[in-house]
């Protein structure tokens, strides 16, 4: 089982036993309320230098409220796993929070491209699938997983993947190292006070992102009773023992869409993309993030009830998004 080739990208050496020790000493098995504010959760569970991941993107079911709070608290030197992203890496970079990213994919963004071209943030290449796959490896408690792609490309060369001979078949196959995030921030449809959470609709990697992290902050549209969770155990995406904080933030993914509940705000999206293009992200963040103490304050003062009702009406597809 020889290693035939190794990418030269920077990655964090997987450490499944180290992750286990963290889980043993930091993750409570107790069924206790973890409800707190976004401010408290980010203060307590996001540190400068953390390896940060989140599920989906600022256009859909992304944890906007939590990302804004990270920016508001001026967290620094985050290493961010970016895949299938939208303007989310751009706002984190514009907020000065990011020093390194793993690239699956980012949407065309002046902020991102400039930061990379100017060497302000460091990059390791992967693919959307490979980033999520690395999180799966972490969520399986493994140091690595074999996979059937990434090989042969320059992406491989700039990644942390390896090419080996499979000892069972003698054939070549790639391996990618597990990724256990320091902290994951994920927005869900429903969870109980302990963190038993439900996400409806197609995922991206809700289970993997939640499971692979040392620290997990959930924001949720709705806090439901634990009785309600136990009535439909089939619908639980992740159990409570993985969750460190539950933050109740209705419209928590605004300006993005929450499938089955509300649509995204196209005006805001255009404003955000124009700010990115015009290199005026500072003003954008001033207006939408720094000016407020919380997501709900922003919604109340800048978005307004009428707009929120419109967004709810705009999401006409509700079939399948209910317990």
């Amino acid at each position, binding site marked *: 089982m020889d290693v035939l080739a190794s990418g030269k990208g920077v990655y964090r050496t997987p450490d499944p036993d180290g992750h286990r020790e963290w889980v043993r000493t930091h993750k409570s098995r107790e069924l206790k309320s973890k409800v707190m504010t976004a401010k408290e959760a980010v203060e307590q569970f996001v540190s400068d230098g953390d390896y940060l991941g989140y599920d989906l993107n600022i*256009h*859909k079911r992304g944890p906007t409220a939590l990302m804004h709070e990270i920016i508001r608290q001026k967290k620094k030197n985050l290493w961010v796993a970016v*895949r*299938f992203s939208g303007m989310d890496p751009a706002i984190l970079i514009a907020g000065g929070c990011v020093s390194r990213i793993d*690239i*699956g*994919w*980012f*949407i*065309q*963004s002046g902020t*991102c*491209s400039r930061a*990379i*071209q100017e*060497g302000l943030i460091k990059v390791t*290449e*992967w*693919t*959307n*699938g*490979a980033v*999520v*796959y690395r999180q*799966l490896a972490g969520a399986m408690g493994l140091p690595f997983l074999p996979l*059937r*792609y*990434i*090989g*042969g*490309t*320059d*992406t*491989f060369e*700039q990644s942390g993947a390896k*090419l080996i001979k499979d000892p069972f078949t003698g*054939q*070549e*196959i*790639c391996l990618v190292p597990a990724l256990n995030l320091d902290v994951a921030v994920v927005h869900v449809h429903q969870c109980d006070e302990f963190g038993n959470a439900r996400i*409806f*609709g*197609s*995922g*991206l*990697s809700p*289970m*993997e992102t939640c499971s692979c992290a040392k620290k997990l902050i959930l924001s949720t549209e709705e806090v439901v009773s634990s009785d309600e969770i136990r009535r439909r155990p089939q619908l639980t995406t992740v159990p409570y023992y993985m969750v460190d904080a539950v933050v109740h933030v209705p419209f928590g993914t605004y300006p*993005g*869409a929450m*499938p089955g509940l509300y*649509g*995204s705000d*196209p005006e805001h999206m255009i404003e955000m993309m124009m700010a990115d293009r015009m290199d005026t992200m500072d003003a954008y963040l001033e207006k939408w993030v720094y000016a407020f103490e919380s997501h709900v304050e922003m919604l109340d003062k800048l978005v307004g009830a009428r707009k929120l009702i419109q967004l709810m009406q*705009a*999401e*006409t*597809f509700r*079939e*399948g998004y209910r317990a």
Partner: protein
Amino acid sequence: MSETINFTTTESMLINVANLIENDKYYWVAIGGSPMMAMMLARKTCAPRAYYVVEDGTISPDPLEYVPFLSGASGAAEYRAVAWKDMNTVGFHCAMGYYDYGILDCLQVDMYGNINSTFIGGTYEHPERRFGGPGGANEIASMCWQTIFMADQEKRKYPRRVDFISSPGYLDGSLRARERAGLPANTGPYRVVSEIAMFGFDEETHIMKLLAIAPWVTLDDLLAEMDFEPLIADPLEKLPPPTEQQLTVLRAEIDPGGRILGQGTWIEYTPED
């Protein structure tokens, strides 16, 4: 003499791809943009029983209309799927060989079908222009049985060798190059489609081969828009021009506002009898 038809290069590109789409085949389609529009067009015309997944885990949805990228964020794109799963599950199904074709839009495709979506100019460490990376294209181009690439016919989009292989074609073109890199056997680029041409790949050398050309351009016009000279099929086929049904579906059902279709340049073409 037939009637003159007018269409944009964008429409022509979408129609050329839609004409490749078959009933009862399974497609992994990039989540928004041209590949999805081509799929919608095919499902409303020649291939109502073409099935597809997208990267977020939506398996065989039945959307009521084309969903552009941003509104892909709404429930519309997931509507009436047979299953809502996740990115890894779709990857597993692809790894097991369930997906016949991938359809991808690309920035650059080279003579061996390698595609670049990472950077152009400069070096990897100091790129002149940096792009978003492979995204899901790497897994699609690696694991679907065959891959269909879409690239506008412009010289810079058809380089001899891409600056960076983000996602794999036939790599250096050598025999079993993909297998030696750990990719599934007997996979690779199938067609490269532009608004005026359809390419395949030579079975031996894996070099891109021009199969068909739009009847309103000459071979010289086409070759002027490539950085390398492809192999040329003999006989070289003519691409069928857009049909009225295809144009009507595109304009009335898929992009009624003309926001995307109108981005191309207009072609005026009069078929010979």
